[in-house]
Every structure is written in structure tokens, then in C-alpha cells.
């Protein structure tokens, strides 16, 4: 190999995160018991530094490591979002995990390594790197789910997640090996060229696409590959549920874009059909089943399934506007999820979980500000105008209308109407019901401040979405070379 390009600038976020993560792991050895709080601040500072490093001007994609790594505008935006949202979720989780004996260096190290896996996926330009990044992220998360090892519920959730995740990885690998057989390469750019020039075996390509899409649907949690989502969301400690529900979705979006929109762009006719089925089923089953839930974490799990369906709507069109609207959707969704689980953790207090609807009854009388933030979050999830969730839904539905699939737009609007029911029910509980118990609501000051910011972000992006939308459109245009 001739080292033609040794400009390591674009890899700096990964390198920094790797070194800092290992340093934090070592730091735990020398810290006294009463200095443990430093671990939290070092981890947050690491993520903040990593986010700052992603803010590099890169107009044109830079390829490194024998074309396995790509640094472009898309990866910059998604990496920034992943680091930022993880830093915020660690702040939300601090008092929760401290009260439950999970405040250990392993929690922080595994979270940082999972973020490293996400960054690797976001910048991958090679099937093998995509897969390894996915495994790095997933393995860290499996362990985080099982971290509370005395709880049978979380052990069960971890085992289910692990077994189904392994199955999904197997499908993904089988699909990738078929694509390798068809095109003779694992490099995403080369695969795309081979398919475009017609030099690839069509039968093997189709088999590969089927298995890759199935594996991706597993990882995204789209129906009919969604079985693990509710159990894992419910069984994990809420701090880990927050982690699973936020940043990994950004990485999964990047995976879909790199794999389907770039690598398999020439086979879009094949995967569009499958994505339509996945999207309709996810929106339908997710929203309908969520109504019947009595556990709020389970309800949010089904809500996550339906949101993944909405996100897929933008991908179906296989054009720049659609991808940009999906990207806007996924970033908006991650901001909403972080806030929602942040509130749930704040309400959980010193022990137990606040996953019962009773916790939310009459929240307005106990803490009007928290109730108002939760109101914003729920309204945004439901897609009520004035919040970012509305614009996100609007943009993906617009993308579907643009490609002439009017029926799909109608179906998605109907399902989002059905979904509004269970979000509004939470608002009703908070404002119109009497509180069951008058529990005091503690919580670290930093997480309360961040929650307020989170609520404001929902409103601000809902009223002035143009800046974020422009960032998404520019990132997709510059990175994928689509008009």
C-alpha cells in the first residue's frame, strides 16, 4: 500500500474518542471512591470534545484507509448529533444510575465505546467496516442492558436483544456475502459502480438485497422484525433505554444511507418495494399496539417502531429531498426521545421505575414546568403544529407525495392520527387528572436545565426549522452527489 493520503484530520473524532475512552477506563483505577463523580464529567467532556472535532469544514468527501473511511458533510452532521445527544443523555442518567448502583466506570466506558462504533458506522465506506462498527456498538449495548445483573427483567432483555441481534447480523452478513459474490468487491463505491455498469449478477444481487434489508429492518426495529424492541425498552434500566433509543438510531440511519442509497443505488427498484411494506407495517402495528400499552416504556417502544416507519418513508423516494427529510426526521426524533426518557428518569426518583401511567397523573400540580416540557415532547411526537415533530412528519410525507405515492401519504397521515391518541392521553393524565401520590421531584440541577433546553429546542426547531433543514439538505447533496 502506498500511503498517498495520510491526512488524519477526518478521523480525529474517532481517535480522540478511542484514546479518551481507554484513559477513562484507566482513570478509575486511581480515583478514590469520593472522586468517582469525575468519571461522569470526563465522559461528558470527551463527548463534547469529540463533537467539537467533527466541526471540520469538508466540502468534498475525503477517503482514507484504502477507501474504507469516508469523511463528508453527512458524517460530520450525524457524528456531531450522536456525540451531543449521548452527552445530554449521560447528564440525564447521572442521578438515576447513581441511585441504582450502576455508577461504575464500565457504564461510561461501554457508552463511549458504543459511540465509537456509531462513528465508525457513520463514516464507513466498506461493508466490513459497516459491519464491524455495528458489532462494536451492539456488543457494548448488550452489556449495558445486562449491567444491572440482579434484575431478572434486564437479564432477560439483554439475552433477547443479544440472540435476535446475532440473528440480524447473520442475515446482514449473508446478504453482504451475496453482494460480494455478485460484484466482487466490498467497497461501497466499487459495488455501486459495478451495479451501475451492469457488471453484477442480477440474481445474486437480489438475494443480497433481500437479506441486507431484512437485517437492517431488524436493527432499526421495523415490523415484522420488531419483536425485540418492546421487551428491550421495558427490561433495560431507563438510562440504557434512553441510550438505545437515541444515538443508535442516527447510526442506523447512516447505515441505511451508506448501504442502500449509495452502495445499492442501482437496485433501488428492488429495495423500494420492501421499504414500502416495512414502512406501512411499522406505522400501522406500532401505532395501533401502542394504544393498548399500560407501561409507558413499552408504549414508547411501539412509538419508536412507528417512528422508524415514518423515517423510512423518506428513503423510499431514493432522491436527495427524501433522504434529507429522513435525516431531519431522525434528528428531530432523537431530540424528542432524549427529552422524554429524561423526564421519565427524573420522575423515577431514588428507586423503582416511573413507567406506570400513575406517575404522570396530575404532574401539572406537582411540577408545572416538567409537565409543560413533557407536553411539548408528547405534542411533538404526535406531530402537532408548532413543534419539530410536525415539520418532520410533514417533510417525509411531502417526499412521498413528490414521488407520486399519494396512497402512502394518506395511509401515513391516518396512522399518525391514530398515534396522536396515546400521546394526548399522557397530556390528559398530566393536566386533567388528580395526582395519586404527592411525591417530591428531585433531580440534579444540570439535568433539569438540560431538560428545559430540550423542550425549548423542540419549540425553536418547530418554529424555525430552516437552519436544521438546510444543514440536512446540504449534507445529503454534498455527500451523495445527488441533485
Amino acid at each position, binding site marked *: 500500500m502506498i500511503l498517498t493520503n495520510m491526512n488524519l484530520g477526518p478521523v480525529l473524532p474517532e481517535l480522540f474518542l478511542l484514546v479518551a475512552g481507554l484513559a477513562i477506563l484507566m482513570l478509575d483505577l486511581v480515583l478514590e471512591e469520593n472522586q468517582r463523580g469525575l468519571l461522569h464529567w470526563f465522559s461528558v467532556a470527551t463527548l463534547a470534545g469529540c463533537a467539537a472535532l467533527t466541526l471540520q469544514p469538508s466540502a468534498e468527501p475525503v477517503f482514507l484507509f484504502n477507501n474504507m473511511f469516508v469523511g463528508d458533510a453527512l458524517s460530520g452532521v450525524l457524528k456531531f448529533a450522536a456525540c451531543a445527544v449521548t452527552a445530554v443523555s449521560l447528564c440525564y442518567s447521572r442521578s438515576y444510575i447513581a441511585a441504582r448502583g450502576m455508577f461504575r466506570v464500565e457504564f461510561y466506558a461501554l457508552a463511549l465505546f458504543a459511540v465509537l462504533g456509531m462513528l465508525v458506522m457513520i463514516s464507513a465506506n*466498506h461493508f466490513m467496516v459497516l459491519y464491524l462498527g455495528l458489532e462494536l456498538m451492539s456488543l457494548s449495548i448488550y452489556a449495558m442492558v445486562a449491567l444491572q445483573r440482579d434484575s431478572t427483567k434486564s437479564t432477560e432483555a439483554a439475552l433477547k436483544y443479544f440472540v435476535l441481534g446475532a440473528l440480524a447480523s447473520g442475515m446482514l452478513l449473508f446478504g453482504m456475502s451475496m453482494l460480494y459474490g455478485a460484484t466482487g468487491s466490498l467497497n461501497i463505491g466499487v459495488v455501486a459502480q459495478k451495479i451501475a455498469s451492469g457488471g453484477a449478477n442480477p440474481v445474486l444481487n437480489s438475494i443480497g438485497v433481500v437479506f441486507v434489508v431484512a437485517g437492517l429492518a431488524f436493527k432499526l426495529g421495523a415490523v415484522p422484525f420488531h419483536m425485540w424492541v418492546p421487551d428491550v425498552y421495558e427490561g433495560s434500566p431507563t438510562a440504557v433505554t434512553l441510550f438505545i433509543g437515541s444515538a443508535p438510531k442516527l447510526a442506523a440511519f447512516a447505515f441505511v444511507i451508506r448501504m442502500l442509497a449509495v452502495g445499492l443505488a442501482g437496485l433501488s427498484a428492488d429495495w423500494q418495494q420492501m421499504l414500502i411494506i416495512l414502512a406501512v407495517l411499522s406505522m400501522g402495528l406500532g401505532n395501533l399496539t401502542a394504544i393498548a400499552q399500560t407501561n409507558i416504556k413499552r408504549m414508547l417502544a411501539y412509538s419508536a417502531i412507528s417512528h422508524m416507519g415514518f423515517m423510512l418513508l423518506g428513503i423510499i423516494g431514493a432522491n436527495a429531498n427524501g433522504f434529507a427529510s429522513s435525516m431531519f426526521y431522525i434528528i428531530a426524533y432523537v431530540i424528542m426521545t432524549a427529552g422524554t426518557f429524561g423526564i421519565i428518569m427524573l420522575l423515577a426518583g431514588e428507586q423503582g421505575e416511573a413507567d406506570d401511567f400513575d406517575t404522570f397523573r396530575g404532574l401539572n400540580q406537582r411540577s408545572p414546568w416538567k409537565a409543560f416540557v413533557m407536553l411539548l415532547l408528547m405534542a411533538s411526537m404526535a406531530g402537532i403544529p408548532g413543534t419539530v415533530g410536525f415539520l418532520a412528519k410533514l417533510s417525509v410525507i411531502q417526499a412521498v407525495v413528490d414521488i407520486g405515492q399519494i396512497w402512502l401519504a394518506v395511509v401515513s397521515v391516518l396512522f399518525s392520527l391514530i398515534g396522536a391518541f396515546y400521546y394526548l392521553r399522557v397530556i390528559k393524565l398530566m393536566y386533567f387528572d388528580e395526582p395519586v401520590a404527592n411525591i417530591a421531584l428531585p433531580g440534579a440541577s444540570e439535568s433539569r436545565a438540560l431538560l428545559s433546553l430540550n423542550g425549548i429546542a423542540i419549540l425553536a426547531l418547530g418554529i424555525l426549522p430552516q437552519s436544521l433543514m438546510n444543514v440536512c439538505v446540504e449534507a445529503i447533496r454534498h455527500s451523495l452527489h445527488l441533485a
Partner: protein
Amino acid sequence: MTFQSIVFYLLAGILLASSLSVITAKNPVHAALSLVLAFFTASGLWVLLQAEFLAISLVLIYVGAVMVLFLFVVMMLDINFEKLREGFWKNLPFAAIVALLMAAELGLLLTSRQAGLSSINALPVVAENYSNTKELGKLLYTDYVYPFEIAAMILMVALVAAVALTMRKRKESKYVDPAVQVKVRRNDRIRVVSMAAEQRRASDDSASS
């Protein structure tokens, strides 16, 4: 039929039979031993593909290290495997239909003329002094250095996760601190008590004599 294809079908047959017996064997030790056979035949297939380094590492790592550990675990754990397999025969018909259908579909697709697998040529003949191991090593540390490092990170995560899940906060873990052990002094273990000398009693004398 060439010699290579005879060897291939022989190894493939043993591989399938042993894999099947991994999941059907009643005795978990037999299942683990069948898995050893499966790995061994798979490494034979790799030798057939002229990938001798991969074949050797499969035998060394999986057969030599992983499966031996696995056997230890299976023998040490007191698990009622009969109970774990309860649903096996009940679910077998449905599972078998699904598996057979999938296999038939994939088989039909892959053997169809359009798939063009028949046009894939035999392995190229390599030069006499070609070293598979050397080429792999070269690739691994140059072109594939990025995925190689990520794989190293995955092993690191496995290490951290194993420690996090098994070591900490377990009351029953027999954990000793070597630093404390080394620092032990004589006085921590035995206590020298000074006592006044006792007088021999007369009754003892009479009893012994």
C-alpha cells in the same frame, strides 16, 4: 468427477451430519464433540480452498481453545438439558417446513441458469512459493488496518463487558486482593499467648502409670 470434488462432497457430508447432530444430540457433551468435528471438517474445506492459514487457525483457536473451554463449562454446569429441549419435538415440524422451504428456494435461485454459478471457474493455480499466510498478513496490516483495529476494539469491549458482568458486586465471588495477601505478617495469622506453667496434677500421674 475430480479428486477435489470427491473430497469436497465427503467433507461437506460429514460437516452437515455433524452440525445436525450438534442440535439433535441428547447428551450436551456429545453435542460439543460433534461441534469439534464440524469445525475440523470446515477447516478441511478451507485447505481445499488453499487457505491453509485460516484452516490452521480454525483448528488451533476453535477446536483447541474455545471448544475445550466449552466442554469444561458444559461438564461443570448442572443444567437440566432435557428441560431446555422440551419444546424441540413440538416445534420441529413447523421449523422443518420453514427451513426446507427456505433451503429449496435458495437452492432453486442459486442453481438457476441466470445465477450463473456454473460459470465460476476453478481456483487459479498459484506459484510454488506462494504463501497464503504471508499474503494475509500483508493485507491485514496494510489495506485492512482500519477494520483490524476496529476488531481489536470489539475484543476490548468484550473484555470490559465480561468484567462488568461477572466481577463486580457479587457477594459469592471468591475474590482475594493480592496486595493485602502479600502484606500479611506473622502476627496476623498466629497469636502467641504467654501462659504460666501449669503444675502436673497427681491424678494425671496415677492415670498414666
